[in-house]
């Protein structure tokens, strides 16, 4: 069966939404994009992109273990990412800077995941789904679970929003003002773990950046306030998912939706960087001198 795109968004969405698997994909994808866009802002602010990447791999091992044991992979994901997140948070105030330790654990976790998959018979499609996402295979129960987990993440994020923002943006002053830095770091890593665990269904552990990091990286370049950046980040993530799903549907070839989602966010990122570079080249800004760099760089004793 093939479908032709009408270029009328309402008609096209109606065509796609007549199928339950597409409705589920849009619903779960939208919820996850919002969560990933919001948490992603803090990932970018705290420079925790590598920790995010690593947690995805830790989750792979957990999901593979769950598949091997015949349990729903999302529970394996949650168990492993939350344990990993706790470990990273306790390692140091900024786990992102602990890249040697994280990298060591990451490699071991990938190996462990590989072992679990080889022990499980008929692993290829399961492994593929965990690594690259299986957005068109999300069940209605899966959507409900995604929604529940997302509500927990969003409520918790709202509760710590200003404290987490302060601790991420201005660590020393926040500490002097009495904020519990270790506890806030732990809360953030746990929120990240849950967000990654549910996002993996859509985008997979290897492509997690497309929803977790790229939209926020775009947002901080086009906004000036934290709230503005969070809104733009979530919108870019949602747009990437919607466009990716639509292209995957109407292209009438068995190309993975994940690829189109990743491509959408990447193209937006490259466009924003190019426009910014051109603008700087054509209209050099004044007032920025070498003092800024020196004053803002960590260094000295």
């Amino acid at each position: 069966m093939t479908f032709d795109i009408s270029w009328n968004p309402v008609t096209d969405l109606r065509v796609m939404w007549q199928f339950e698997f597409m409705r589920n994909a849009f619903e779960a994808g939208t919820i996850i994009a919002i969560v990933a866009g919001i948490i992603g802002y803090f990932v970018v602010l705290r420079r925790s992109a590598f920790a995010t990447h690593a947690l995805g791999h830790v989750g792979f091992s957990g999901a593979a273990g769950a598949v091997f044991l015949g349990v729903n992979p999302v529970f394996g994901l949650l168990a492993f990412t939350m344990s990993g997140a706790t470990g990273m948070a306790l390692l140091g105030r900024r786990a992102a800077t602990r890249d040697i330790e994280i990298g060591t654990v990451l490699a071991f976790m990938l190996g462990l995941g590989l072992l679990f998959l080889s022990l499980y018979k008929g692993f290829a499609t399961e492994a593929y789904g965990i690594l690259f996402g299986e957005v068109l295979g999300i069940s209605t129960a899966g959507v409900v679970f995604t929604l529940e987990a997302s509500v927990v993440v969003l409520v918790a994020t709202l509760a710590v929003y200003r404290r987490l923002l302060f601790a991420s943006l201005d660590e020393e002053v926040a500490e002097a003002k009495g904020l519990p830095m270790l506890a806030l770091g732990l809360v953030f890593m746990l929120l990240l773990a849950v967000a990654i665990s549910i996002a993996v269904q859509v985008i997979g552990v290897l492509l997690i950046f497309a929803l977790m990091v790229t939209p926020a990286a775009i947002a901080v370049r086009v906004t000036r306030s934290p709230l503005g950046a969070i809104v733009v980040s979530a919108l870019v993530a949602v747009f990437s998912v919607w466009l990716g799903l639509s292209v995957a549907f109407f292209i009438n070839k068995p190309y993975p939706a994940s690829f189109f989602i990743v491509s959408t966010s990447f193209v937006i990122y490259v466009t924003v960087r190019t426009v910014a570079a051109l603008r700087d080249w054509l209209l050099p800004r004044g007032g920025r001198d070498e003092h800024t760099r020196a004053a803002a760089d960590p260094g000295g004793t």
Partner: protein
Amino acid sequence: MEYAPRGNTLPDRPVSVVGSTVVRAERLDAGFRDKAVWTNASFEIERGEFVAVIGPNGAGKTTLFRMLLGLQRPLAGALTVFGESPRRGNRRIGYVPQRHSVDIDTHIDCDSFVRLGVTGTRWGPGLPNRADRDAAAAALASVGAGELAHKCIGTLSGGELQRIFLAEAMVGDPEMLLLDEPLSNLDLRRSRDLVALVSGLVESHHVTTLLVAHDINPLIQRLDKVVYIANGRVATGTPAEVLTSESLTALYGVPVEVLHDSRGNLVIVGAEESLGGEHE
């Protein structure tokens, strides 16, 4: 340029409280774990004083700040701030750390950044409200940075950045400011501008201020007191008392000479040899 912090919207405190002791150190030893960086320091800092904390790298100037902030405990001796033991999260203290973790790529405007100084310790998402907005605007105005409110932190010059950090520290209307090396990346003219600004805040807000610096010269004409940390010891007093050949020779334990030029600048000779390190 000269900044004029007078006539801003932050409330002035009654002058009558000037003169009470804000910081008292008695036979204080400072260090990390069991390793002392300086010992046996006794000094007092009075309300409304502008104090420079001077000394070579690694002498323990930041250690003093960390103890005042309650981030580090004294090894021995007594230290009180506002008559109490130092505690973390004391809202009466505004702090500008030396290595500020604000990234050059941080795309956040100064208003949002300064506002976090007052809202950043609260729970919940918080709706924008007039009180917080006014507090941030008043703090920005008090450092003459009202026009920077909507500029991104990452695009500011070194002098502007230090003014924004100062505004962030001022936003809770503190009674004491701890400024760690705010002059370290500024040239002499911008250093003098910032010192004039801080000095104005000390006078208009009666905010007791401790400023860590390497070089005494941009500060010397505006100071009430000097805390000179070197060689594991601390000397305290007015600039005229501390910055003499006799006093610094006693502090360093080797002959040190303080020379004056015709414009009132000081050159300290001999100290760097005794420590084998850099002394600007």
